[in-house]
Each structure stands twice: as C-alpha cells, then as structure tokens.
C-alpha cells in the first residue's frame, strides 16, 4: 500500500441500534397525536405552577412543575418567524431561473399555547409572508396521527 503523509479515510459504518434511549415525551406526544386522529382536536398540556401551555406537550415545565392538565387549543396560529428555500433546493439552478413558489417554513404559535412549532406555509407567495401573520392548520384529508398532520398551514382569512 502506498503511504502518503496526510489524513486518510477508512471505509466502515456504526450501528445506531447499539444505543438505548428513554424518550420521556413520547407517551405525551402519542396522546396528542391519537386525539388529533380520533377527535380532530389539538391537545396541549398546561402547567399548574405558572400556567404555560405546551404544544407539543412536555413532561416538565421550565418552572419545574409537572404540566399535568390537558387543554384543547385552537388550530389557528401566529407566525413568529419564517424562511423559504433558496436555489440549493433547485439543484443549482440560479435564482432568476427558478419558477413556482419555493417551500416556505414558518415558526408558529397556536392560539391557546405558549410554544413554537414549525410548519410548511402554503397558498401564499414568499414576499407576502410576514412575522405576525395569521395562519390556520390545513388538516390533511386523512389524519394519520403523526407530526406530518401538522406539516401544512394556510393564511387565515379573518
């Protein structure tokens, strides 16, 4: 084997299944997802100590109390921040050549909750998106009880 005096790479892979996880939030999030699927509702958990409402639900509050009260929140929300995809998403095509609407992602806070969720914003041009804009969850035709159910939002006409 030829030796060069420089850094080299060696082929191989590591097995993720050798690690163990305890994911304390899963049971709570599962409950929220199941309620979305069965009752078409958004369930959040509320902290008895400071009143903060977590969506997705959280096992413990930042005030260190246990948020053990389940509350229904609305499916309308306010945009707190956003971004849209640039030219990289179009495999190197330059910006002026891009046609159609880029993917818009928004940080949103659902009405009745105090936490941020990220969702895809549809039915609006990027230049018309703004922080503070009102949106509503676009429920999928078939609710599957997963994060993908929350993946799409549209502007709210009030």
């Amino acid at each position, binding site marked *: 084997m030829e030796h060069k005096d420089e850094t080299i790479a060696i082929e191989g892979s590591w097995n993720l299944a050798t690690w163990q996880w305890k994911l304390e939030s899963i049971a709570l999030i599962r409950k929220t997802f199941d309620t979305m699927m069965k009752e078409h509702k958004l369930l959040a958990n509320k902290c008895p100590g400071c009143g903060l409402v977590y969506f997705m639900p959280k*096992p413990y509050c930042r005030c260190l109390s246990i948020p053990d009260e389940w509350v229904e929140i609305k499916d309308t929300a306010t945009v*707190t921040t956003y971004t849209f995809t640039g030219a990289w998403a179009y495999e190197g095509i330059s910006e002026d050549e891009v046609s159609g609407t880029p993917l818009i992602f928004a940080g949103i806070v659902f009405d009745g909750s105090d936490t941020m969720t*990220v969702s895809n914003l549809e039915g609006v041009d990027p230049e018309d998106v703004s*922080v503070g804009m009102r949106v509503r969850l676009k429920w999928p035709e078939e609710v599957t009880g997963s*994060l*993908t159910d929350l993946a799409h939002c549209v502007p709210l006409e009030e």
Partner: protein
Amino acid sequence: MAKNEVAVAGVGLSKHVSKRRDVNIAELVWEAVNACYEDAGIKPKDVDAFATGNMPAFEGVNMPEEWGAGHWGAYNKPVLRITTGGTTGGSVAHGGYYLVGSGLYDMVMCIAFEKQSDGNSTMGLNTVALADAAAQLQLGVDPSFIAAFGGGAVGVAVYQASSYMKSSGCTTNHLDKVAALCRNNAALNPYSHLKQPGLTPEEVAKTTLLQYPIRFGHVCPATDGACAMLFTTGEKARKLTDKPAYVLSCASASDEAALVGIAGSGTTNVDPCEQESCKIAAARAYEIAGIKDPRKEIDLAEPYAPFAHQLLMFYERLLLCNEGEAPSILDSGSMNLEGELPVCPSGGVISTNAIGASAMERVAECALQIMGKCGERQVKKEVHKAVAHGWGGAVNLNVVAVLSDEPRR
C-alpha cells in the same frame, strides 16, 4: 468575583484553512500551543494546569486531549476538558479564568480547536440532535421530513434572522454590509480563513440564496484551526509581559432550547432572536467587571457571529445599544476598525470558524487588541475594555467575558 486577579499573558493561533491534511489534530494544536509558549516567553514546565476543548463529534475523535497531552506539554499535569458546542472555546476560557481566579493554579494553558476536515460537521451536529431525532423516528416520522424542516446551524439561523429583521428593521442590505465589513477585516488578519479584501456589499448580495434571508456570502466557512491562551495571575502576567490583558469577568446563561424542544416537546423560547440568556450573561459580566454603562465603557466587541445578522443581534443583546439600533450604528461606520466601537476586527466567526476554537478566538482577539499585538488590523482607538461572546450549546447557551488593560480597581 475572582479571589485572584486573572490576566492573559500570551496568545497563540495556528494557521486557519479549510483542510489541513498535512497534520493530525495533535500536530495542528501544537502550532497554536507552541506559538503561545513563545508569545508568553515560557516553557511547558512553567504551566501548572491545562484546560482544553473542542466538539469531539465533529472530528469523530473522543478525548483528543489525552492523545495530545504529550504533544502539548501536559504529561503529568492536571487537564480539564470542556465541551459546550459552539460556545466550547468561550467555556474553555471561562475554565482558565476559574482555575486561576480561584487561586488553585497560577499558570493555566487554555487550548481550543477544531479540525473539521478530519470528520463531517453535519454528521456531528446530527449526533447533538440524536435524542430529538430518535424521538421523532419513534413517532414514525420520516427522516427526510425531519431534515426538510431545516436542521443544523443554518436551519436555526434563518429563523433567527427573519425574526430579528422584523423586530429591528435590519434589511438584507445590512446583512450584506456585515459580511463585507468582516471579510475585509479578515483580509488584514494573518490567522483568518476567508480573506476577501475589497469585498463590497453589492458582491455579497449577488451570492446564492441558501435559505431566506441567508445568502452564501452571509455564512461562515468550515475551518481547521486552533487557539491557545495563557491565563495567569496579574502578578505573574506583569513579570511576563509589559502589557497583559486582564480578564475582569466571565458569565454565562443557559436558556430553554430554541426552535424545537427536547425530544419533540414544545419550547417556550418562541422568538429565536430574543436571546434573553445573552442579555442576562452580559449584565452579570458587566456587573462583576464593575462596568456601569457598557455603551460608554466598552471600546471593542467580538460577538460570536457565524451568520451576518448575529453580529447586529448580539451587539444589541450584549447591551451595547438599545434593541433595534444596531443596523443604524453599522450604517454610521462606528463598527469599522477606525470607528467608535469596532466590532469583530478579527474578521469574526463569519470569516473563520474552527467551531471549538471560535468562541475562544473572540476572547483572544480582545486580549490581542488590548495588548496592541494586532498589526494591520489593530483598531485606531486605544482599547481599555473589550467584550467577547460565544453562542452555542443546544443553541441556548451564551457566554460572555470582559477584558481590560487594567485590573479591576
């Protein structure tokens, strides 16, 4: 407040480039450590203890300080290893401050580095987010769906940039100006990575849009590099050098994780540009340093800004002006090398980002500017007090250090 006066008596930096294939981690770090020994005029035997840090996940080498001990002169000496993500180097400097300030050790060599070309930093960031990703996989979410929501540092930064622009009135033109300012400063710094002398905001504006509002020209490079600093007591520093840089204070604060909470839960940190923990850390650092009005008393700032908007955002969060004023201060020219409060004279993280080293290089630049060792990039005004900052952790930790040309009276 520290029991002992703490001062920086020497600084060493390696060459900073994208790929150092000719050296391994220990050899790269040695370049900085050796430069620091020479700058301080000491031998390895004079050092009492070491504090080191990097993000091992990025290189894929765990406990590199054990591997490097022989190379750096740390055999049979105490070694404290500190790793806090993007803030790592800042936290290592804090470690040096605590080790000397507590009175436990007199001469402490602080070492921070990253050799990104040895590994894959995106892969490394995935390991940071593994618990969150594992939770989502457990819930049956497709991995490509998780990725599409913009993971990694850019994913966090774009959301932060949008909300900062809304709250401050910062425009994309200001982002272009920040990039041009930093890359021009970097051109005067022999230890910087991306040197672009004469770069104009107009040229930055023509670079590819990665993800609104961040363009290619607004983002840091991935760098191989190392930084070493000798922390010692005020008394010893005065014997080693005519002009030591005193570390008046260090403070840090950790907030709730931003963007998505731990393991898929919600986070009440709903505005990624608020950075409450930076304001808390800065206020604490100024108080310990005896600084009453940072706007008047701070002469120079090295905020941690791998993305253009962060230079302005953290300038505000370091309490150097009112919120929303930084863009107009940039326009006034005050942040330039010859300005009233120069910002990132080193060229900043946007020009050079050896991640684990970056937050310590902010402290190092403040020290070098105070010591008057910056050559072409030495700022015009005399620097009495400077503030260094780091941002990282799970994008929730802020670290701040205040340096001065005089010990606290």
